[in-house]
């Protein structure tokens, strides 16, 4: 995997990912744009700068692992995998269709590059902890990354895993919370308050980093900091905007799981394209 180092190139990659997310969901007629868009910048940095893997050899044993705990952001994962070369971009238009390898939520038996099936929330951090523990047992160098939604933190299992990973000192594990502050029923602080979120992770024994999840240098620095932590797992709480990059979707809970109509698709793609060409 050739890494992208320039910040403007990473920004551009994130916008290309956004473009494919919107197109893919519009083609499927359903899907989850809000939480896919909010994590596009984090995803772009992970897949095109931070992680080591080989798209031509998805089973390469020493690859870094990425677990999409918030499985509904499948369009984000599929766009990243396609851009990384795991499969052709043209396959993205099969999303959610019968016989497609691009299931509504990621299914690992169907698509190379998907490490494990997700979709039922709250499980990714436990799975990632298991992979990280195996890596430590076998003295492997790979790291494990997992992306969680903030609404997903309502699941009790996340905190079981948080306790476990700190107890086992899994310094090769990095969790990223996509803190877009919206879940299906609305504002996370009204549905089920998460704050003080940093204090919670601190108390569970994690190294906690707060960043702007749309600021590429911020994201890069956070991963650099993760590399220096040797005694505990790291969590990056990334403040994001749900629906980021499409003006009418931003900060609207209603765009959690809804496809755009023809007019909205055109408008969204136009906005994103303008930034790609800027």
């Amino acid at each position: 995997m050739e890494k992208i180092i320039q910040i403007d190139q990473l920004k551009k990659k994130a916008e290309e990912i956004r473009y494919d997310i919107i197109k893919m969901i519009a083609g499927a007629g359903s899907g989850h744009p809000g939480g896919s868009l909010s994590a596009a910048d984090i995803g772009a940095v992970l897949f095109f700068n931070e992680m080591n893997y080989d798209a031509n050899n998805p089973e390469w044993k020493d690859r870094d692992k990425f677990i999409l705990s918030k499985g509904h952001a499948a369009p984000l994962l599929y766009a990243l995998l396609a851009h990384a070369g795991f499969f052709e971009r043209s396959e993205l238009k099969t999303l959610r269709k019968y016989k497609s390898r691009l299931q509504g939520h990621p299914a690992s038996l169907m698509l190379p590059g998907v490490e494990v099936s997700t979709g039922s929330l709250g499980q990714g951090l436990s799975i990632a902890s298991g992979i990280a523990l195996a890596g430590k047992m076998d003295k492997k160098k790979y790291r494990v990354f997992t992306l969680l939604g903030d609404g997903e933190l309502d699941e009790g299992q996340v905190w079981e895993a948080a306790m476990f990973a700190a107890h086992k000192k899994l310094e090769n594990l990095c969790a990223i919370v996509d803190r877009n502050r919206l879940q299906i029923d609305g504002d996370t602080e009204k549905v089920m308050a998460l704050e003080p979120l940093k204090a919670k992770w601190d108390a569970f024994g994690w190294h906690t980093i707060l960043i702007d999840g749309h600021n590429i240098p911020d994201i890069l620095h956070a991963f650099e900091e993760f590399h220096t932590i040797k005694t505990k797992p790291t969590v990056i709480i990334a403040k994001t905007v749900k629906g980021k990059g499409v003006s009418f979707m931003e900060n609207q809970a209603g765009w959690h799981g809804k496809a755009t109509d023809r007019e909205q698709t055109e408008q969204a793609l136009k906005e994103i394209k303008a930034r790609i060409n800027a």
Partner: protein
Amino acid sequence: MKTQDIRPIQDGYGNALLKLGETNPNVLVLDADLSTSTRTNWFAEKFPERFIDVGIAEQNMVDIAAGLSLEGKIPFVTTYGVFVCGRAFDQLRNTVCYSQLNVKVVGSHGGISVGADGGSHQAIEDIALMRILPHMTVVVPCDHFQAHKATMKLAELKGPAYLRLAREATAALTDEDSDFEIGKAQIVTEGDDCAIFFAGTIGAEVMKAVKLLHDKNIFPTIINMHTIKPIDKECIIKYAKKFGKLMTVEEHLQAGGLGSAIAEVLAEEYPAKMKMLAIYDRFGESGQPDVLLDAFGLSARKICEQVEGFLKK
């Protein structure tokens, strides 16, 4: 038959893990704070670096095992059946089975013979919950010898599997040299009057019932259906054809258990009348194991009565 050999079935599991610890470096054992009850403490003492106690967190345990299996490990996830199958069902369904991961799930304390702890701790729905999951293999050994063999075989099998154990020490029906093959029913004794299928340690009661039946000049064929999934269809159909009707005995809910699995085969392949001795739509309760088995109609005496009645019909 060595009826004098009375040991808890977990001992077979615990010993098999010790053997696997020596022969297969990929085998890991996970427990949720019940390692003395489940016998995983034997493995823990000998292979501490390969034993993971997750604390009282079954959901986390199953998904940690999922992660470990992705890296080529063979995790044996162990705790009471009622907790692992119930509390971690979603993890078993959506992560382990949906991704077809090589995770072995071991549920101890199956059935009402768990006794004094009562209904909250007696797994009576675990077989139903596990056998409905695509990709899942379900094995219910009858004694410690068979539990040992089943554990060894499951370590070799690729894919998710559930192994159901029980609490009480029961008489061994097999010995060290008995054959054991996943998916192949075992004929314990052949008789000309009827066929009785059982699964698990209740086999000890069934064999006591056989003695009582012999006194009444009734000679049943007894089949140990140690694998619930994949089920040995051929064997079921063979005996349905031979006797025209079948009886099943299990320490599990009638809905979804062994009898239910056999009925599914017969309904499609060779409809035959059945009598299912099982637990009918209720929870267990506290009591002495033998008292409970009798109260639930699963003691040797009650099984014997039921066989007599079934043959008269």
